[in-house]
Protein backbone atom coordinates (compact mmCIF):
# COMPACT_ATOMS: atom_id res chain seq x y z
CA UNK A 1 0.00 0.00 0.00
CA UNK A 2 1.22 3.43 -0.94
CA UNK A 3 0.81 6.42 1.27
CA UNK A 4 0.96 10.01 0.19
CA UNK A 5 1.42 12.68 2.81
CA UNK A 6 -0.93 15.63 2.67
CA UNK A 7 2.10 17.89 2.25
CA UNK A 8 3.32 16.22 -0.87
CA UNK A 9 0.09 15.89 -2.76
CA UNK A 10 -1.06 19.38 -1.79
CA UNK A 11 2.26 20.84 -2.86
CA UNK A 12 1.69 19.27 -6.25
CA UNK A 13 -1.50 21.19 -6.73
CA UNK A 14 -1.62 24.40 -8.71
CA UNK A 15 -2.43 27.76 -7.14
CA UNK A 16 -6.07 28.24 -6.11
CA UNK A 17 -6.91 30.60 -8.97
CA UNK A 18 -5.70 28.17 -11.58
CA UNK A 19 -7.54 25.41 -9.79
CA UNK A 20 -10.74 27.38 -9.96
CA UNK A 21 -10.23 27.99 -13.67
CA UNK A 22 -9.52 24.30 -14.24
CA UNK A 23 -12.57 23.39 -12.27
CA UNK A 24 -14.67 25.68 -14.40
CA UNK A 25 -13.26 24.24 -17.61
CA UNK A 26 -13.85 20.78 -16.28
CA UNK A 27 -17.41 21.62 -15.35
CA UNK A 28 -17.95 22.82 -18.90
CA UNK A 29 -16.97 19.39 -20.12
CA UNK A 30 -18.87 17.44 -17.53
CA UNK A 31 -22.03 19.41 -18.24
CA UNK A 32 -22.29 17.56 -21.53
CA UNK A 33 -23.30 14.56 -19.46
CA UNK A 34 -26.65 16.28 -19.24
CA UNK A 35 -26.43 15.46 -15.59
CA UNK A 36 -26.69 18.75 -13.88
CA UNK A 37 -30.05 19.94 -15.06
CA UNK A 38 -31.65 17.29 -12.88
CA UNK A 39 -29.49 18.04 -9.88
CA UNK A 40 -29.85 21.77 -9.88
CA UNK A 41 -32.59 22.73 -12.27
CA UNK A 42 -30.24 25.27 -13.80
CA UNK A 43 -29.25 25.77 -17.40
CA UNK A 44 -26.61 23.41 -18.71
CA UNK A 45 -24.08 26.12 -19.47
CA UNK A 46 -24.21 27.70 -16.03
CA UNK A 47 -21.15 26.44 -14.12
CA UNK A 48 -21.61 28.98 -11.33
CA UNK A 49 -25.02 27.52 -10.52
CA UNK A 50 -23.50 24.07 -10.29
CA UNK A 51 -20.92 25.42 -7.84
CA UNK A 52 -23.71 26.96 -5.78
CA UNK A 53 -25.59 23.68 -5.66
CA UNK A 54 -22.46 21.77 -4.61
CA UNK A 55 -21.73 24.29 -1.84
CA UNK A 56 -25.35 24.19 -0.71
CA UNK A 57 -25.17 20.38 -0.57
CA UNK A 58 -22.00 20.68 1.53
CA UNK A 59 -23.88 22.93 4.00
CA UNK A 60 -26.70 20.37 4.01
CA UNK A 61 -24.11 17.68 4.78
CA UNK A 62 -22.88 19.83 7.70
CA UNK A 63 -26.37 19.65 9.15
CA UNK A 64 -26.74 15.92 8.42
CA UNK A 65 -23.44 15.21 10.18
CA UNK A 66 -24.29 17.39 13.18
CA UNK A 67 -27.49 15.37 13.46
CA UNK A 68 -25.57 12.05 13.17
CA UNK A 69 -22.97 13.15 15.74
CA UNK A 70 -23.44 11.35 19.06
CA UNK A 71 -21.70 13.38 21.82
CA UNK A 72 -21.19 10.20 23.86
CA UNK A 73 -19.92 7.90 21.11
CA UNK A 74 -16.18 7.33 21.55
CA UNK A 75 -13.72 6.81 18.73
CA UNK A 76 -12.06 3.37 18.95
CA UNK A 77 -8.82 3.33 20.98
CA UNK A 78 -5.90 1.06 20.12
CA UNK A 79 -3.01 -0.69 21.92
CA UNK A 80 0.53 0.78 21.83
CA UNK A 81 1.50 -1.93 19.33
CA UNK A 82 -0.92 -0.49 16.77
CA UNK A 83 0.79 2.92 16.63
CA UNK A 84 1.92 3.86 13.11
CA UNK A 85 5.69 4.36 12.92
CA UNK A 86 6.86 6.66 11.55
CA UNK A 87 3.75 8.78 11.88
CA UNK A 88 3.26 10.72 8.61
CA UNK A 89 3.92 14.45 8.54
CA UNK A 90 1.20 16.43 6.83
CA UNK A 91 0.50 20.10 6.28
CA UNK A 92 -0.11 22.48 3.39
CA UNK A 93 3.68 23.04 3.18
CA UNK A 94 6.76 20.83 3.26
CA UNK A 95 8.46 19.67 6.44
CA UNK A 96 11.36 22.15 6.17
CA UNK A 97 8.83 25.00 6.39
CA UNK A 98 7.41 23.93 9.76
CA UNK A 99 7.08 27.08 11.90
CA UNK A 100 9.45 27.56 14.84
CA UNK A 101 7.54 28.62 17.94
CA UNK A 102 9.81 29.43 20.90
CA UNK A 103 8.59 27.86 24.14
CA UNK A 104 9.85 30.78 26.19
CA UNK A 105 7.53 33.71 26.09
CA UNK A 106 4.77 31.65 24.45
CA UNK A 107 1.25 32.70 25.47
CA UNK A 108 -1.94 31.01 24.32
CA UNK A 109 -4.39 33.83 23.62
CA UNK A 110 -7.99 33.18 24.63
CA UNK A 111 -10.84 35.34 23.39
CA UNK A 112 -14.45 35.73 22.37
CA UNK A 113 -17.27 34.49 24.58
CA UNK A 114 -15.12 33.53 27.58
CA UNK A 115 -14.97 34.89 31.14
CA UNK A 116 -11.19 34.57 31.74
CA UNK A 117 -9.22 36.16 28.91
CA UNK A 118 -5.85 35.85 30.62
CA UNK A 119 -3.25 34.32 28.22
CA UNK A 120 -1.78 30.93 29.23
CA UNK A 121 1.90 29.99 29.53
CA UNK A 122 3.05 26.47 28.68
CA UNK A 123 3.85 25.51 32.31
CA UNK A 124 0.33 26.61 33.30
CA UNK A 125 -1.17 24.44 30.56
CA UNK A 126 1.05 21.46 31.44
CA UNK A 127 -0.20 21.74 35.05
CA UNK A 128 -3.80 21.04 33.98
CA UNK A 129 -5.10 17.44 34.38
CA UNK A 130 -3.71 15.38 31.48
CA UNK A 131 -5.21 12.45 29.57
CA UNK A 132 -3.78 10.14 26.90
CA UNK A 133 -5.42 8.59 23.85
CA UNK A 134 -4.28 6.19 21.12
CA UNK A 135 -6.61 6.87 18.22
CA UNK A 136 -6.80 6.79 14.44
CA UNK A 137 -6.07 9.98 12.53
CA UNK A 138 -7.97 9.89 9.21
CA UNK A 139 -6.90 12.26 6.46
CA UNK A 140 -9.43 13.74 4.03
CA UNK A 141 -7.24 12.17 1.32
CA UNK A 142 -8.18 8.71 2.57
CA UNK A 143 -5.07 7.43 4.37
CA UNK A 144 -5.08 6.89 8.12
CA UNK A 145 -2.48 6.48 10.87
CA UNK A 146 -2.67 5.63 14.56
CA UNK A 147 -0.92 7.90 17.05
CA UNK A 148 -0.65 8.54 20.78
CA UNK A 149 -1.50 12.01 22.04
CA UNK A 150 -1.63 13.50 25.55
CA UNK A 151 -3.00 16.77 26.84
CA UNK A 152 -5.91 18.36 28.64
CA UNK A 153 -9.46 17.36 27.73
CA UNK A 154 -10.64 20.38 25.75
CA UNK A 155 -13.92 20.51 27.65
CA UNK A 156 -11.97 20.88 30.91
CA UNK A 157 -10.01 23.77 29.41
CA UNK A 158 -13.15 25.48 28.09
CA UNK A 159 -14.70 25.22 31.56
CA UNK A 160 -11.54 26.67 33.17
CA UNK A 161 -11.72 29.77 30.98
CA UNK A 162 -15.43 30.14 31.58
CA UNK A 163 -16.35 29.68 27.92
CA UNK A 164 -19.98 30.09 26.87
CA UNK A 165 -20.66 26.39 26.23
CA UNK A 166 -23.90 27.27 24.46
CA UNK A 167 -22.04 29.20 21.75
CA UNK A 168 -21.89 27.65 18.29
CA UNK A 169 -18.19 27.61 17.40
CA UNK A 170 -14.64 27.49 18.68
CA UNK A 171 -12.12 29.07 16.30
CA UNK A 172 -8.32 28.68 16.14
CA UNK A 173 -5.46 30.79 14.79
CA UNK A 174 -2.14 29.07 14.19
CA UNK A 175 1.52 30.06 13.84
CA UNK A 176 1.62 28.77 10.24
CA UNK A 177 -1.28 31.07 9.20
CA UNK A 178 -3.60 28.08 9.30
CA UNK A 179 -7.02 28.78 10.76
CA UNK A 180 -9.82 26.43 11.70
CA UNK A 181 -13.13 26.17 13.53
CA UNK A 182 -15.25 23.43 15.02
CA UNK A 183 -18.78 23.03 16.37
CA UNK A 184 -19.35 23.27 20.13
CA UNK A 185 -20.73 19.70 20.53
CA UNK A 186 -17.48 18.33 19.10
CA UNK A 187 -15.43 20.74 21.25
CA UNK A 188 -17.14 19.24 24.30
CA UNK A 189 -16.68 15.59 23.21
CA UNK A 190 -14.76 13.64 25.89
CA UNK A 191 -11.96 12.71 23.44
CA UNK A 192 -11.39 16.20 22.04
CA UNK A 193 -8.04 17.17 23.50
CA UNK A 194 -5.75 20.22 23.65
CA UNK A 195 -2.60 18.21 22.99
CA UNK A 196 0.91 18.92 24.32
CA UNK A 197 2.58 15.53 23.86
CA UNK A 198 3.00 13.05 21.01
CA UNK A 199 4.04 9.52 21.93
CA UNK A 200 6.01 9.86 25.15
CA UNK A 201 7.61 13.25 24.42
CA UNK A 202 6.69 16.91 24.10
CA UNK A 203 4.88 17.49 20.79
CA UNK A 204 7.70 17.96 18.23
CA UNK A 205 7.54 20.89 15.77
CA UNK A 206 6.42 18.74 12.82
CA UNK A 207 3.38 17.50 14.76
CA UNK A 208 2.35 20.93 16.02
CA UNK A 209 4.50 22.34 18.86
CA UNK A 210 3.55 23.92 21.19
CA UNK A 211 0.06 22.44 20.96
CA UNK A 212 -2.54 21.03 18.60
CA UNK A 213 -6.17 20.16 18.94
CA UNK A 214 -6.69 16.41 18.66
CA UNK A 215 -10.21 15.43 17.53
CA UNK A 216 -10.57 11.71 16.81
CA UNK A 217 -14.18 12.32 15.69
CA UNK A 218 -13.09 14.56 12.82
CA UNK A 219 -10.83 14.35 9.75
CA UNK A 220 -7.17 15.28 10.13
CA UNK A 221 -7.39 18.79 8.68
CA UNK A 222 -9.87 19.68 11.46
CA UNK A 223 -7.00 19.13 13.97
CA UNK A 224 -5.16 22.49 13.92
CA UNK A 225 -1.45 22.56 14.91
CA UNK A 226 0.77 25.35 16.31
CA UNK A 227 -2.24 26.96 17.98
CA UNK A 228 -1.53 30.57 19.03
CA UNK A 229 -5.05 31.76 19.82
CA UNK A 230 -8.51 30.35 20.27
CA UNK A 231 -11.87 32.05 20.55
CA UNK A 232 -15.49 31.15 21.24
CA UNK A 233 -18.05 32.69 18.91
CA UNK A 234 -21.47 32.49 17.32
CA UNK A 235 -20.21 33.87 14.01
CA UNK A 236 -19.05 31.19 11.57
CA UNK A 237 -15.24 31.52 11.43
CA UNK A 238 -14.60 29.23 8.43
CA UNK A 239 -11.25 27.54 7.93
CA UNK A 240 -8.18 27.38 5.66
CA UNK A 241 -9.37 24.35 3.67
CA UNK A 242 -13.09 24.82 4.28
CA UNK A 243 -13.02 28.22 2.56
CA UNK A 244 -11.60 26.47 -0.53
CA UNK A 245 -14.32 23.85 -0.69
CA UNK A 246 -13.64 21.11 1.85
CA UNK A 247 -16.65 20.21 3.95
CA UNK A 248 -16.73 22.18 7.20
CA UNK A 249 -18.11 19.60 9.65
CA UNK A 250 -15.96 16.73 8.30
CA UNK A 251 -16.90 14.40 11.14
CA UNK A 252 -15.82 10.77 11.34
Amino acid at each position, binding site marked *: *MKRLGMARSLADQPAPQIERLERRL*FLGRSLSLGALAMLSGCTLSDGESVQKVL*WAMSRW*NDRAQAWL*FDPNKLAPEYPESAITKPFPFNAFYSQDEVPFVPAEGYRLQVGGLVREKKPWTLPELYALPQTTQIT*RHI*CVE*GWSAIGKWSGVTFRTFLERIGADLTAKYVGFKCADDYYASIDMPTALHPQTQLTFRFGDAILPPQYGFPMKLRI*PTKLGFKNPKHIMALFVTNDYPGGYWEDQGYNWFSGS
Partner: protein
Amino acid sequence: MAAVHEAQATGWVRIHPLVVRITHWINVLAVLMMVTSGWRIYNASPLFDFTFPNGLTLGGWLAGALQWHFAAMWLLALNGLVYVVYGIASGHFRRKLLPISPRAVLGDVREALRGKLAHDDLAVYNAAQRAAYLALIVALAVLVLSGLAIWKPVQLQELAALMGGYEGARLVHFFAMAIMVTIVVVHVVMVILVPRTFPTMITGRARRVS
Protein backbone atom coordinates in the same frame (compact mmCIF):
# COMPACT_ATOMS: atom_id res chain seq x y z
CA MET B 1 -53.73 -10.02 -17.77
CA ALA B 2 -54.16 -6.44 -18.92
CA ALA B 3 -50.73 -6.57 -20.51
CA VAL B 4 -51.69 -9.64 -22.49
CA HIS B 5 -54.88 -8.00 -23.79
CA GLU B 6 -52.93 -4.89 -24.70
CA ALA B 7 -50.35 -6.98 -26.49
CA GLN B 8 -52.97 -8.84 -28.49
CA ALA B 9 -54.68 -5.60 -29.43
CA THR B 10 -51.64 -3.53 -30.39
CA GLY B 11 -48.74 -5.90 -30.94
CA TRP B 12 -46.79 -4.18 -28.15
CA VAL B 13 -45.85 -5.58 -24.74
CA ARG B 14 -45.03 -3.51 -21.73
CA ILE B 15 -41.78 -4.87 -20.30
CA HIS B 16 -40.30 -2.19 -18.02
CA PRO B 17 -42.58 -0.50 -15.44
CA LEU B 18 -42.35 3.29 -15.21
CA VAL B 19 -40.71 3.21 -11.73
CA VAL B 20 -37.97 0.92 -13.04
CA ARG B 21 -37.31 3.16 -16.05
CA ILE B 22 -37.13 6.37 -14.00
CA THR B 23 -34.94 4.87 -11.27
CA HIS B 24 -32.74 3.24 -13.94
CA TRP B 25 -31.87 6.57 -15.59
CA ILE B 26 -31.46 8.45 -12.32
CA ASN B 27 -29.17 5.63 -11.25
CA VAL B 28 -27.13 5.99 -14.44
CA LEU B 29 -26.61 9.65 -13.62
CA ALA B 30 -25.84 9.04 -9.93
CA VAL B 31 -23.43 6.15 -10.61
CA LEU B 32 -21.60 8.19 -13.28
CA MET B 33 -21.09 11.03 -10.80
CA MET B 34 -20.16 8.72 -7.92
CA VAL B 35 -17.63 6.66 -9.90
CA THR B 36 -15.90 9.55 -11.64
CA SER B 37 -15.67 11.68 -8.48
CA GLY B 38 -14.68 8.56 -6.50
CA TRP B 39 -11.74 7.93 -8.82
CA ARG B 40 -10.50 11.46 -8.15
CA ILE B 41 -10.76 10.85 -4.40
CA TYR B 42 -8.91 7.53 -4.82
CA ASN B 43 -6.12 9.38 -6.66
CA ALA B 44 -5.45 11.58 -3.61
CA SER B 45 -4.23 8.53 -1.69
CA PRO B 46 -4.12 5.44 -3.93
CA LEU B 47 -4.67 2.05 -2.29
CA PHE B 48 -2.70 0.32 -5.05
CA ASP B 49 0.13 1.12 -7.39
CA PHE B 50 -1.96 2.94 -9.98
CA THR B 51 -4.16 6.01 -10.33
CA PHE B 52 -7.11 6.76 -12.58
CA PRO B 53 -6.50 9.17 -15.49
CA ASN B 54 -7.59 12.61 -14.25
CA GLY B 55 -9.35 13.18 -17.56
CA LEU B 56 -11.88 10.51 -16.60
CA THR B 57 -12.61 12.04 -13.21
CA LEU B 58 -15.09 14.60 -11.92
CA GLY B 59 -14.46 17.55 -9.62
CA GLY B 60 -11.14 18.96 -10.85
CA TRP B 61 -9.36 18.50 -7.51
CA LEU B 62 -9.89 16.59 -4.25
CA ALA B 63 -12.27 19.09 -2.62
CA GLY B 64 -14.35 19.38 -5.80
CA ALA B 65 -14.52 15.60 -6.14
CA LEU B 66 -15.58 15.26 -2.51
CA GLN B 67 -18.34 17.84 -3.05
CA TRP B 68 -19.66 15.87 -6.01
CA HIS B 69 -19.35 12.55 -4.20
CA PHE B 70 -21.18 13.72 -1.08
CA ALA B 71 -23.89 15.47 -3.11
CA ALA B 72 -24.51 12.58 -5.52
CA MET B 73 -24.57 10.03 -2.68
CA TRP B 74 -27.99 11.33 -1.65
CA LEU B 75 -29.31 10.87 -5.18
CA LEU B 76 -27.83 7.35 -5.39
CA ALA B 77 -29.09 6.24 -1.97
CA LEU B 78 -32.60 7.74 -2.15
CA ASN B 79 -33.14 6.55 -5.72
CA GLY B 80 -31.83 3.10 -4.76
CA LEU B 81 -34.18 3.01 -1.80
CA VAL B 82 -37.20 3.80 -4.03
CA TYR B 83 -36.11 1.08 -6.47
CA VAL B 84 -35.55 -1.60 -3.83
CA VAL B 85 -38.79 -0.85 -1.95
CA TYR B 86 -40.71 -0.90 -5.25
CA GLY B 87 -38.93 -4.06 -6.42
CA ILE B 88 -39.84 -5.96 -3.27
CA ALA B 89 -43.34 -4.55 -2.67
CA SER B 90 -44.56 -4.88 -6.26
CA GLY B 91 -43.12 -8.35 -6.77
CA HIS B 92 -40.93 -7.00 -9.60
CA PHE B 93 -37.78 -8.64 -8.19
CA ARG B 94 -39.52 -11.98 -7.66
CA ARG B 95 -41.07 -11.97 -11.12
CA LYS B 96 -38.06 -10.78 -13.10
CA LEU B 97 -34.99 -11.92 -11.18
CA LEU B 98 -36.13 -15.27 -9.75
CA PRO B 99 -35.78 -18.20 -9.93
CA ILE B 100 -32.08 -18.35 -10.54
CA SER B 101 -29.75 -21.37 -10.44
CA PRO B 102 -25.97 -21.52 -10.88
CA ARG B 103 -26.31 -24.15 -13.58
CA ALA B 104 -28.69 -22.02 -15.66
CA VAL B 105 -26.39 -18.99 -15.24
CA LEU B 106 -23.32 -20.95 -16.36
CA GLY B 107 -25.25 -22.41 -19.28
CA ASP B 108 -26.43 -18.97 -20.45
CA VAL B 109 -22.98 -17.43 -20.04
CA ARG B 110 -21.53 -20.22 -22.18
CA GLU B 111 -24.19 -19.63 -24.84
CA ALA B 112 -23.59 -15.90 -24.74
CA LEU B 113 -19.86 -16.34 -25.24
CA ARG B 114 -20.63 -18.45 -28.31
CA GLY B 115 -22.82 -15.59 -29.51
CA LYS B 116 -25.94 -17.72 -29.42
CA LEU B 117 -27.82 -16.44 -26.41
CA ALA B 118 -31.55 -16.52 -27.01
CA HIS B 119 -32.99 -13.10 -26.26
CA ASP B 120 -36.23 -13.09 -28.25
CA ASP B 121 -38.65 -12.20 -25.49
CA LEU B 122 -37.33 -9.00 -23.94
CA ALA B 123 -39.87 -9.27 -21.13
CA VAL B 124 -38.08 -12.29 -19.70
CA TYR B 125 -34.52 -12.00 -18.41
CA ASN B 126 -32.29 -15.00 -19.13
CA ALA B 127 -30.31 -16.53 -16.27
CA ALA B 128 -27.12 -14.60 -17.06
CA GLN B 129 -29.05 -11.32 -16.96
CA ARG B 130 -30.72 -12.25 -13.68
CA ALA B 131 -27.35 -13.03 -12.13
CA ALA B 132 -25.81 -9.79 -13.44
CA TYR B 133 -28.68 -7.56 -12.27
CA LEU B 134 -28.82 -9.23 -8.85
CA ALA B 135 -25.05 -8.89 -8.49
CA LEU B 136 -25.31 -5.23 -9.48
CA ILE B 137 -27.95 -4.57 -6.82
CA VAL B 138 -25.80 -6.33 -4.21
CA ALA B 139 -22.65 -4.45 -5.32
CA LEU B 140 -24.47 -1.11 -5.06
CA ALA B 141 -25.77 -2.01 -1.60
CA VAL B 142 -22.22 -2.95 -0.50
CA LEU B 143 -20.94 0.33 -1.99
CA VAL B 144 -23.47 2.33 0.03
CA LEU B 145 -22.71 0.44 3.26
CA SER B 146 -18.92 0.58 2.89
CA GLY B 147 -19.21 4.22 1.86
CA LEU B 148 -21.14 4.96 5.06
CA ALA B 149 -18.43 3.14 7.05
CA ILE B 150 -15.67 5.26 5.43
CA TRP B 151 -17.66 8.48 5.89
CA LYS B 152 -18.53 7.76 9.53
CA PRO B 153 -15.95 5.31 10.97
CA VAL B 154 -16.67 6.59 14.49
CA GLN B 155 -20.43 7.20 14.50
CA LEU B 156 -21.02 3.97 12.50
CA GLN B 157 -18.07 2.04 13.95
CA GLU B 158 -20.10 -1.16 14.35
CA LEU B 159 -20.74 -1.13 10.59
CA ALA B 160 -17.07 -0.36 9.90
CA ALA B 161 -16.02 -3.20 12.22
CA LEU B 162 -17.95 -5.69 10.02
CA MET B 163 -15.53 -4.76 7.22
CA GLY B 164 -12.39 -4.88 9.35
CA GLY B 165 -12.52 -1.23 10.41
CA TYR B 166 -11.84 1.95 8.46
CA GLU B 167 -9.03 0.58 6.27
CA GLY B 168 -10.98 -2.62 5.58
CA ALA B 169 -14.00 -0.58 4.53
CA ARG B 170 -11.82 1.32 2.03
CA LEU B 171 -10.84 -1.99 0.41
CA VAL B 172 -14.45 -3.24 0.38
CA HIS B 173 -15.53 0.07 -1.20
CA PHE B 174 -12.84 -0.21 -3.88
CA PHE B 175 -13.57 -3.83 -4.84
CA ALA B 176 -17.35 -3.31 -4.85
CA MET B 177 -16.72 -0.37 -7.22
CA ALA B 178 -14.56 -2.60 -9.46
CA ILE B 179 -17.26 -5.30 -9.57
CA MET B 180 -19.99 -2.74 -10.27
CA VAL B 181 -18.03 -1.07 -13.07
CA THR B 182 -17.31 -4.49 -14.63
CA ILE B 183 -21.00 -5.41 -14.62
CA VAL B 184 -21.94 -2.00 -16.08
CA VAL B 185 -19.36 -2.37 -18.87
CA VAL B 186 -20.70 -5.85 -19.78
CA HIS B 187 -24.25 -4.49 -19.59
CA VAL B 188 -23.46 -1.63 -22.00
CA VAL B 189 -21.68 -4.02 -24.38
CA MET B 190 -24.74 -6.30 -24.37
CA VAL B 191 -27.03 -3.36 -25.11
CA ILE B 192 -24.81 -2.44 -28.06
CA LEU B 193 -24.96 -6.07 -29.29
CA VAL B 194 -28.76 -6.22 -28.88
CA PRO B 195 -29.68 -2.60 -29.64
CA ARG B 196 -33.45 -3.13 -29.65
CA THR B 197 -33.27 -3.46 -25.86
CA PHE B 198 -32.23 0.19 -25.61
CA PRO B 199 -35.52 2.00 -26.50
CA THR B 200 -37.45 -0.34 -24.19
CA MET B 201 -35.77 1.22 -21.15
CA ILE B 202 -37.15 4.60 -22.33
CA THR B 203 -40.61 3.75 -23.67
CA GLY B 204 -41.12 0.67 -21.53
CA ARG B 205 -42.53 -1.44 -24.37
CA ALA B 206 -41.36 -3.72 -27.13
CA ARG B 207 -43.05 -5.17 -30.22
CA ARG B 208 -44.54 -8.54 -29.48
CA VAL B 209 -42.67 -11.50 -30.91
CA SER B 210 -45.11 -13.52 -33.01
